[in-house]
């Protein structure tokens, strides 16, 4: 059995829990015997914080978790400058020159005067990790999960072709951009968008979907995060939201029952709003998954619980 996709790209508006979902997805993919790589690209130490392990430095790929299912998750924090030095080494055999370049500030210079270069270098490193071979295994990693830039920038970030449009017309970087784009457009790559059921994140999700369509990169699942599920029906919620329903919990005083009712009115109103946003997302005609809000905060146990919910709702395995 192999995973259906070998590259999962996870994006979402700031504050939607994108890094947590990326970490949980890596755990969900790490079934028995599998090796999964979880990468981040903006150096925020999100992965090391989430898994409570020391920060990553340079190009190290270190194990961050052994899942209960018997797989392992490795972590990597991709840095554009390290990636450029690695790139120079691979294509020009210039590792020493690369280091000297770095000392003179040339790496910063190159990635600054050609902002697209930075994105190509970052996605290029992901490409390398996805395709890497090692002894006795077809691939070094069974799948790679990328904690990608937020939804506002995702289409731009992944559109490496456009990024290199102003760069050298020939040579390795152009060829590499073509290879990266082929991988991103292949059936084994998928982008997931994490959202809350609030107006702004839903709007950004809709915009990201529209911006990704022309890139021909597949959109996988829209993940509704921190949702409060309810067993109540729509009319019950509506009645509760008006605050006009008297609650009668035996053992509570009249005042306490009233306080409970007005608190519940707000909660019910919020759930109704969430349902409206869910309906909005349904019109995107994309698979949806929902992750229940964990009121106890996020720790390793919570990440594994989210992983289980993802496994149940996303088709992660090859048919």
């Amino acid at each position, binding site marked *: 059995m192999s995973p259906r996709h070998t590259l999962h790209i996870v994006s979402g508006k*700031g504050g939607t829990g994108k890094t947590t979902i990326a970490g949980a997805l890596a755990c969900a993919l790490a079934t028995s015997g599998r090796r999964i790589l979880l990468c981040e690209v903006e150096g925020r130490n999100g992965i090391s914080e989430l898994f409570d392990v020391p920060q990553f430095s340079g190009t190290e790929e270190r194990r961050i978790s052994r899942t209960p299912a018997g797989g392992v998750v490795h972590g990597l924090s991709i840095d554009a400058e390290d990636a450029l030095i690695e790139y120079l080494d691979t294509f020009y055999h210039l590792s020493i020159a690369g280091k000297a370049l770095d000392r003179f500030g040339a790496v910063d210079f*190159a990635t600054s005067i050609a902002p697209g270069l930075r994105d190509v270098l970052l996605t290029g490193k992901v490409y390398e990790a996805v395709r890497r071979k090692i002894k006795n295994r077809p691939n070094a990693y069974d799948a790679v999960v990328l904690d990608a830039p937020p939804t506002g920038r995702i289409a731009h970030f992944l559109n490496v072709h456009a990024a290199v449009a102003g760069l050298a017309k020939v040579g390795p970087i152009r060829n590499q951009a073509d290879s990266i784009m082929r991988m991103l457009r292949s059936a084994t790559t998928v982008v997931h968008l994490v959202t809350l059921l609030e107006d702004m*994140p839903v*709007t950004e999700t809709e915009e990201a979907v529209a911006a990704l369509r022309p890139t021909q990169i597949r959109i996988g699942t829209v993940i509704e995060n921190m949702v409060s599920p309810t067993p*109540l029906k729509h009319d019950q919620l509506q009645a509760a939201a008006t605050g006009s329903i008297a609650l009668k919990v035996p053992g509570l005083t009249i005042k306490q029952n009233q306080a409970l009712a007005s608190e519940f009115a707000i909660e019910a109103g919020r759930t109704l709003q969430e349902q409206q946003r869910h309906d909005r997302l349904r019109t995107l005609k994309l698979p949806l998954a929902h992750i229940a809000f964990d009121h106890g905060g996020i720790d390793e146990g919570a990440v594994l619980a989210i992983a289980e919910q993802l496994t149940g709702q996303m088709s992660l395995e090859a048919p």
Partner: protein
Amino acid sequence: MTDGNPAKAFQAQTHAGLAVPFLDIDKIIGDRETKIIICCGSGGVGKTTTSAALALRAAEAGRKVVVLTIDPARRLAQSLGVGELDNTPRPVPMIDTAAGGSLDAMMLDMKNTFDDVVIAHSTPEKAEAILQNQFYVALSSEFSGTQEYMAMEKLGQLHSEAEANGTWDLIVVDTPPARSALDFLDAPEHLSSLLDGRFLRLLLPPARGPLRLMSAGFSMMSAVITRILGTQIINDVKTFVRAFEALFGGFRQRATATFQLLSSRHSTFLVVATPQHDALREAAYFVDRLTEEDMPISGMVINRVHASALAISPERALSLAEDLSLAEDLADASTPLEVEALRRHANLMRLVETETRQMERFASARPGIAQTQVQSLPSDVTDLVTLRRVGVLLADKD
């Protein structure tokens, strides 16, 4: 806090009970010497809403305010009357002007701000050459620091305008969502070092004097860089730098002046966060960095804090819910609403506990940082009425 350092753990315990100083928003906006308020924080914590609510409250308290927002949510922008992205401050209608204040709002358009600077500071021919340059086009729309840099530039412009004709006496700035803490403080330096860095100098006319000796190593490197980037872009950069050189000194000077303005007693920073681990961790970076740079911090605004008026523990609520569910199985009573209400209350109380713990940890690790909490609202903030309510919550001592 999670690093297992015993000394730190002990500190956390001893400080947990200490009172956190209160951030008095009304005192800040009431102080006529406060001329600039900068709201910073990570993405998704409600910076724009906080800036807008603060600006509205200050205006209705009699200040003449302009709020500079960066990429606000469309509906919030509409509520402020800045639906269009035209880089010009517009009066916000329907506010209460009884106290003699006013409120203007604008949305930053970084490309236009950059273009305006170029046009204002060079001859028409030179400006034309710069605006057409491919490298300039990329720099002004894509360079990762441009938005931050232009926010600083715009702030400088608004401040000079305010000083010159008294249109405003308070500028509220909503900073761009930073990729890393305080990009907007670093951006001017980053752009400066890029544009007058020695690497760029070497791409320009051949170096003379002692520099020439160094350039053997460089020429190999610039050959590599040229191979990667292509000759076209290098030529664009060269043309751009030649045209931009005269202008550039001015850029750097203004950035330095704005930086000084931000460190003066007329400015103050508010760090915005939500009571979650990630957001508070980012907030800690902001607080530390601002402290290092000797920037004036007033304190922290913690948005979307949950609370309950019903003092019933989650355990008790769940056991009451369980009793009701059992009773429902026996008799055919219809109490689903009660059960659900109790479950939701239990969840809310657990969330309150988690948030309180996170905030206590933050307060014990950064003692002395004043805080104000803004309770989570039942709906999105999209109109002046709700914005005013956020202002009240900001100013209230809980």
